[in-house]
């Protein structure tokens, strides 16, 4: 049982197959789901699953819908960004997260490892995405 941060291998293939759309106008819906430390998530994860997904106050299975910031480039690197996501007034304990698309049978994009359990108690649980640049953006292709 472990969560290892990774860009899912199936996501890389899906990119090549044209099954992922991050464009601003016809982009797919991307979501972020939270998982407990009992989950096994890594590069081999292929799709969203409810197993060991967080449950708690103001957390809905499937997680939050992400607001996509259209893909852009800097130098030779292309990257995308998401707006920070918050579960308001929630009581949650999470060890990691899965970003996935609701298309293609909830295909996985990336696994996020929080490094330790993070909790909120009747408070806001906020995921802060890194700066959208060539060196830090959440998903980069260099």
């Amino acid at each position, binding site marked *: 049982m472990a969560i290892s941060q990774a860009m899912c291998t199936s996501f890389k293939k899906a990119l090549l197959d044209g099954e992922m759309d991050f464009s601003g106008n016809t982009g797919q819906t991307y979501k972020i789901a939270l998982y407990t430390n009992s989950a096994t998530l890594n590069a081999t994860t292929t799709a969203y699953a409810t197993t060991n997904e967080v449950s708690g106050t103001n957390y809905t299975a499937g997680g939050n819908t992400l607001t996509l910031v259209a893909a852009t480039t800097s130098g030779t690197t292309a990257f995308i960004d998401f707006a920070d996501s918050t579960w308001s007034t929630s009581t949650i304990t999470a060890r990691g997260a899965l970003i996935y698309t609701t298309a293609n049978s909830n295909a996985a994009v990336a696994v996020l490892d929080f490094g330790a359990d993070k909790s*909120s108690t009747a*408070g*806001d649980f906020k995921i802060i995405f890194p700066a959208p640049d060539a060196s*830090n953006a959440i998903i980069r*292709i*260099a």
Partner: protein
Amino acid sequence: MPSSVTYDGWGEPAWDDGSWGTDLTTVSVDGIAATGGLGSVTVSGIANVPVTNVSGQTHLNTISVIIDMPISVVGIGATTSLGIVRANAWKLIDDGQVPHWGPVDDSQTPSWINIST
């Protein structure tokens, strides 16, 4: 590494961050990079010969060169033989003289030899 901050109490988070009077837990996550790789390609050198209009592949076969050499004929030497010419030393006897004969001088040394048979 991801980092997190938990704000407990009233108004602890930054201005406009979180709700007034609500605790806030923030989780800052790291980005994930995928490095695109280009594999090596093998290029087979196919020589395209630009041709105008008609293209044709020519092939040079092996040729045999036959040289007709004129034969120089060396002159054939022919040895000629000349026969032996015998000259008879004689003269006409003047039969007008008187006598027109003479006796054989039998005192002379015979200038003849017997022929072997």
